[in-house]
């Protein structure tokens, strides 16, 4: 009786394991959208990381130059990087020569294993930040998106990207180093077509994130520099591509509101939990994840506002 059942149970078990193995390897569904001659953007959602989206919440991009494809950011995981590379190779016959990683956050820098190490470039301070925080980010990413991360390892690019002009084929890319989002943030401007790859210096219809931000007002000041460029298409790090500068105005408005909220709350002696529950103005209703990010930003930045609002008590 028992011996007759065992093979059937085994067979069921094998079938079940095979089924779950297949179900556990979901694929990213990436699409390249042309935004200018020879320039494509790969848009992600404006959600938070989840096991449903595999961390595809980010915009990556690539462009042909006549002398090799320039890629901007590699995405949240090895699997994303591989899908991005396959998409690039479907879209153009040109070989990939430069992969510019805008900053050290996992959603932008964790697909690098899919690309040749010699093609990877990053600002020097961003390389140091990735070496410092990469493993902790990876742990957190495995927790948040699970199996999508399988096989992903932190890769710190060997090549240092210096601010100035990077000439590749017919394009003379402006390499701009900023600090507002993480302390080492790359912005790339392509003057032939006027495309600004703002990366996470600009979040559009998606609340900005602050875990390594050195300060909200410094961030806002840097955005004013970007507004002076002759931009025709703005590619934010998160959220929809724009053909005007309205995302910069939305960012400035949001940063000003956040800074004022934190400063006023500190002056009124509010506790962090009270700030996290503060009302968010209705004009920001179109910005996703704003309550979630207010909770995070309060954790990151409010302690300094609080300390500045208190006075040293003499013994």
């Amino acid at each position: 009786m028992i011996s007759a059942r065992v093979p059937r149970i085994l067979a069921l078990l094998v079938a079940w394991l095979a089924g779950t193995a297949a179900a556990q390897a979901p694929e990213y569904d990436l699409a390249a959208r042309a935004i200018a001659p020879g320039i494509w953007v790969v848009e992600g959602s404006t959600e938070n990381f989840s096991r449903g989206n595999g961390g595809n919440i980010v915009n990556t991009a690539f462009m042909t130059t006549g002398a090799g494809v320039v890629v901007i950011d590699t995405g949240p995981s090895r699997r994303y990087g591989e899908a991005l590379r396959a998409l690039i190779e479907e879209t153009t016959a040109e070989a990939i020569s430069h992969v510019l990683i805008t900053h050290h956050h996992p959603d932008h820098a964790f697909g690098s294993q899919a690309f040749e190490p010699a093609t990877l470039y990053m600002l020097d301070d961003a390389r140091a930040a990735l070496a410092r925080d990469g493993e902790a980010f990876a742990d957190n990413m495995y927790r948040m998106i699970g199996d999508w991360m399988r096989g992903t390892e932190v890769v710190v690019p060997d090549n240092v990207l210096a601010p100035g002009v990077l000439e590749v084929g017919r394009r003379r890319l402006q390499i701009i180093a900023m600090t507002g989002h993480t302390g080492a943030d790359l912005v790339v401007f392509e003057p032939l077509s006027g495309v600004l790859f703002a990366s996470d210096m600009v979040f559009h219809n998606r609340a900005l994130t602050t875990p390594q931000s050195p300060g909200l007002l410094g961030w806002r000041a840097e955005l004013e520099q970007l507004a002076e460029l002759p931009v025709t298409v703005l590619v934010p790090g998160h959220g929809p591509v724009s053909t005007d500068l309205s995302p910069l105005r939305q960012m400035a408005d949001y940063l000003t509101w956040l800074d004022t909220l934190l400063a006023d709350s500190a002056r009124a002696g509010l506790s962090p939990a009270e700030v996290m529950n503060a009302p968010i103005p209705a004009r920001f209703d179109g910005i996703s994840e704003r309550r979630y990010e207010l909770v995070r930003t309060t954790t990151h930045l409010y302690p300094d506002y609080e300390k500045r609002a208190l006075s040293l008590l003499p013994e």
Partner: protein
Amino acid sequence: MNILINILVFVLGCLLSVGVRAAWPDDPFGSPMWAYNIERYLGSDARVVHDDRVNLRVPEFAEDSAQVPLTVDLSAFPEAPGQIVAWVDLNPVPHLFSASPGPQPLTLLALNFRVQQATTVRVAVQDREGVWHIGSRYVDAAGGGCTAPSQTMSNPDWERHFGTIRGGAFSRAEGMRYKVNVMHPMDSGMVGNIPAFFIGEVELRQGNGQPLLLSMALSESAAENPMFVFEFGQRPPRATLWLRDNNGNQFERRLGGDL
């Protein structure tokens, strides 16, 4: 034979504890530690009710497992609160603080705590009849906050800032709010080769022979460099903060403002 006796004791113990726990309301969060920690911190004969007027505010997730903000707003509590006990169910040492307010009604208390893993958090407030009113929240977390070395100690000149105390007094619509920040590593003793070193005793004194505004016992779940907020429904004539850590360091500061 011994085994039989052990089994008998175990079964009796289970029956007894079931008998006691039946008197407590169910935990809406279904925490395995609900009854155990009530018994541990409030006693096996505690009378317990859920009460939203113990307005406990913690974020739904811990962005930093070593610094999770907690605020207990008692402004809707119908009487001056008695004993207040707070704990974090799944921490290695769940107890966060026990506070005894004086005659001035305490309307709000805030501080940061650590979480070791996703957990429920409880604040129990005792009324005049001795009944405990419990506010509960769930906080999701990557965890590890209790067994991570303090940021303070990784800074080579931490001793220069050790014991630095900043404070402020804030007039409220009714009453007075005090906010105090103390630079102290608050080491939990759960990190290898770093002994427990934390502030265990906190008092807010009025002086002049007046009763204490508040006395509070803190445990290992409290976060480093604590930022305390205390609010009273009436403005106390004066307030002095007194602290002592487990190494015997004492700190005393007159709280600022127009006192």
